[in-house]
Every structure is written in structure tokens, then in C-alpha cells.
């Protein structure tokens, strides 16, 4: 008997695509102060769909009282635009977790529920990153997080999204030549969705 034989492989073909329109994007309202300077000029490298963002935030908030971390995958697509690679996170997936206030991973018994949510994705996703929470500890990548990022999410487009639901902070990170860098990301929404942090919409008075 011989082992499995690999006959050949193929990499993902990255499409050229314009990112979400500027008028349908905003920086996240929970960005920590130290992240703000990079939001003045540089292009975003990750666009997080409003609904996915709500799922991440609500997941983290749901475990605040217990002080537990949460975690999940960022499901999205990779594109390029004018020579710049970026990702669009359209959804997230998670399952039952084994968590403490300082660690988190998937419950081994929860994989099939995780796979069920992956099966429900209505697009050919790539795991363009992962999210997890640091309740009360701020947003950064710990040595465990860096090890996960290096071992699993080591492509330039991979993002680690970290949320602190106690301090109300959310920030994104990536690796560049093994070094942790902050990543500029924007929340985007579809044309007919109101942004959750948008202004109220009042009917315009028509002057006769």
C-alpha cells in the first residue's frame, strides 16, 4: 500500500474588482485611538460587511458577563484593484468553543456545526482570516495569536480581527515578513442597507 499521491495543484485565481464604493464604507466606530492615524490616507485592505461585523461584535458581547473569549472564521473573497490586494469579508462562521478569559479554540465536538455553517455560505469562500475577543484586555496579538497567524493565516491578505467588547474596541492585524502590523479595514454595506451607525433618515421636505 502506498500513501496518497498528489497529482497536481492549483492556486486561487485572484480577480480584479473595484472595492465597495466609498459612500458605502466607514471606519469602525470601535477603533482604538492608536489606530486612527492610519485611517487618513492609506487604502483599506479589508472590507467587512456590516452584517458580518454585527455577528462578530454580538458574539463577543454575548460572553462579556462570563468574561470568556470567542472566536470564529472570516469568510470572504480576495481581489486586487490597481495592483493592491484586498479582501471582502462577507460572513463569519463559528461554533461551540472551549474558552476561558485568556484562551479560546473550537470545541472538538463542535466541528460539524461549524461545517454546517460553512456549507450554508452562498459563495465560494476563502477563510481570509479569523476573529477573536480579548474581553477587557484591549486589541493586540498575543504570542498564541501570532503563532496561529504564522501557522495558518500567513498570506499577505489574511487578517486577525480582534475585538474587546468591554473596552468597546475593534482592530485588525496582519503579518508582514513575520512582523505584526495593524491593518486598515472598513465596514461596508449594501446599497439599500442603512449603516448601523449612520444618521437617521428623514424624508426631505419638498418646497412648493
Amino acid at each position, binding site marked *: *500500500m*502506498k*500513501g*496518497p*499521491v*498528489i*497529482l*497536481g*495543484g*492549483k*492556486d*486561487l485565481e485572484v480577480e480584479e474588482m473595484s472595492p465597495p464604493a466609498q459612500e458605502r464604507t466607514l471606519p469602525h466606530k470601535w477603533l482604538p485611538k492608536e489606530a486612527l492615524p492610519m485611517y487618513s490616507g492609506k487604502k483599506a485592505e479589508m472590507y467587512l460587511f456590516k452584517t458580518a461585523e454585527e455577528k462578530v461584535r454580538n458574539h463577543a458581547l454575548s460572553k462579556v458577563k462570563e468574561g470568556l*473569549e470567542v*472566536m470564529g472564521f472570516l469568510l470572504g473573497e*480576495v481581489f486586487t484593484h490597481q495592483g493592491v490586494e484586498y479582501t471582502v469579508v462577507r460572513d463569519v462562521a463559528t461554533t461551540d468553543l472551549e474558552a476561558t*478569559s*485568556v*484562551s*479560546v*479554540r*473550537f470545541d472538538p465536538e463542535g*466541528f*460539524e456545526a*461549524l*461545517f*454546517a455553517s*460553512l*456549507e450554508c455560505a452562498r459563495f*465560494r*469562500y*476563502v*477563510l481570509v482570516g*479569523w476573529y*477573536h475577543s*480579548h474581553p477587557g*484586555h484591549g486589541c493586540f496579538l*498575543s*504570542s*498564541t*495569536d501570532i*503563532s*496561529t497567524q504564522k*501557522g*495558518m*493565516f500567513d*498570506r499577505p491578505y*489574511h487578517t486577525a480581527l480582534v475585538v474587546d467588547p468591554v473596552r468597546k474596541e475593534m482592530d485588525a492585524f496582519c503579518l508582514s515578513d513575520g512582523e505584526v502590523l495593524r491593518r486598515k479595514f472598513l465596514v461596508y454595506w449594501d446599497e439599500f442597507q442603512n449603516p448601523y451607525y449612520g444618521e437617521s433618515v428623514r424624508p426631505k421636505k419638498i418646497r412648493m
Partner: protein
Amino acid sequence: MVVRVRVRNAETGATVDMELEMENTVEEIIEGVSAYWEKDPGAYVIRKGRRLLRGQQKVQELDIQSNEELELIPDPEGGKI
């Protein structure tokens, strides 16, 4: 008898085509693709649809159809420390 499958790396969207013998195990499949993609085999699982394929299961037990796609999924760990 051999069966040909495609394994998709969920982290990158890359795929490999593999030829499996009925006696091959899931662990061997993970080791094969992990070596190809230079990953730590211990940090990954494989799914077939909604099913988690267990390491010691043999191909003959998996009801794999020819040209079926399996997916390599990371098992990450996060933490403050």
C-alpha cells in the same frame, strides 16, 4: 482500487488533486496536503460536506465518490497570553 479526490485549502482557495487507495487514512490525507502546502498537519482537520473525517478512518469507510471535494480546515487557537 484508487479514487481521485480534490482537496481544497479553505485558507487560500488553492486545491490539489489526489489519488487515494482504499486503505489510506484521513491522517495520511492531511499529512499529504499539509506537506504540499507546508502546514503543520496537527493543526488541521478535513471535512466532507458537514462531516468531520476522523484521523484513523480509512478511505473505504468514507463513502468518497470519484472527483469529490474535501476541504482542509484550520483549527486555530487564540488567547491573551
